[in-house]
């Protein structure tokens, strides 16, 4: 082999190694399907009543990946659509779905009693938890996660809707905020991120 060819051979080898290494790095830093909020949003912290009437806090869910969502049961479209998408995502996880809890915090504690919440979350699956606080507890928690909500004017029958931010916060098993989802995110994308988060914790 001539020295020129040897040099070319060495050069090609170096380029290949660089390419392989580069690809490996790419795979490790593959972006999340949801928005990365690590270090931006406060860790999981709350003190509320669950659908069985028991007082729970963030420590009750340590060791599990937690999805936090604010909504209300009289919401016919957006809330069940979001919770339904999360239920589909959990179905895609198989047995790992048990490592996840979806915490549904009501922004309408006046109508969402413990009993109403229990029926409601049961309709979506065993991983779904209904949480409620009084008005000030709910407000405090919504401020922590910058969730806006407001009760709209009631109609003649006294029915009202509640406008609210439609965000899904994802916390890892240690309670650190990691990802943010919304109503546009599909079940497959959410499942893919949850799998990655579960396997890395």
């Amino acid at each position, binding site marked *: 082999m001539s020295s020129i060819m040897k040099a070319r051979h060495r050069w090609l080898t170096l380029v290949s190694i660089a390419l392989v290494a580069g690809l490996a790095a790419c795979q490790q830093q593959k972006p999340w399907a949801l928005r990365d909020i690590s270090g931006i949003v406060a860790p999981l912290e709350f003190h509320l009543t669950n659908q069985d009437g028991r007082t729970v806090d963030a420590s009750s869910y340590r060791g599990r990946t937690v999805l936090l969502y604010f909504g209300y049961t009289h919401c*016919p*479209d*957006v809330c*069940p*659509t979001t919770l339904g998408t999360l*239920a589909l995502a959990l179905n895609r996880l198989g047995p790992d779905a048990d490592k996840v809890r979806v915490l549904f915090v009501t922004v309408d504690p006046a109508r969402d009693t413990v009993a109403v919440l229990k029926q409601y979350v049961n309709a979506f*699956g065993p991983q779904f938890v209904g949480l409620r606080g009084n008005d000030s507890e709910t407000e405090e928690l919504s401020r922590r996660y910058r969730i806006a*909500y*407001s009760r709209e004017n009631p109609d003649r029958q006294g029915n009202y809707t509640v406008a609210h931010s439609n965000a899904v916060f994802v916390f890892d098993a240690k309670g650190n905020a990691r990802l943010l989802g919304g109503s546009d995110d599909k079940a497959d994308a959410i499942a893919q991120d949850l799998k990655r988060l579960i396997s890395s914790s």
Partner: protein
Amino acid sequence: MMQCSIEPRRRFFSTNTLRSRLRYTIGAGIAAILALFVCTAATAAPEVTVKNARIRLLPGDLPLAGYFDLVNEGKQPFTLLGASSPAFKMIHMHLSTEQNGKSTMLTIEGIEMNPGETLRFTPGGYHLMLMQRVKPLQVDDQVPITLKFSGNQSLDVMFKVQGAESQ
């Protein structure tokens, strides 16, 4: 919902002669034809197709959402004005939308549809808000809902009840 059944009148045979019975029959016949004509005019169906009509079931008496795909197959524009159903005391037409970072619902009075146009009532967008069930519903039930259009037109559609996680 418009009732279009024609009640058969009770017959009296006690002292009827053949002639009076004949007169009665002709009279009833004319009345029936008139009634049919009135019914046809009142429920003239627009040239539309509806597909994928479904209701997402939630527990208790929580308001439900009804979704469907509607196509204007005719040559005339029309307006979808709303819906009614014997299964719900109240139905509103809504659009979910985002305002100031919050999801909210707008009440929609009417949606105009041009010939050939498709309108999707779909999660996160347009939906029928179905309130106050007349009786409890179950997954796989078929629920009749009448869609109301401009020009005094309407269309009866069967909606299939699906689970809470359905889209």
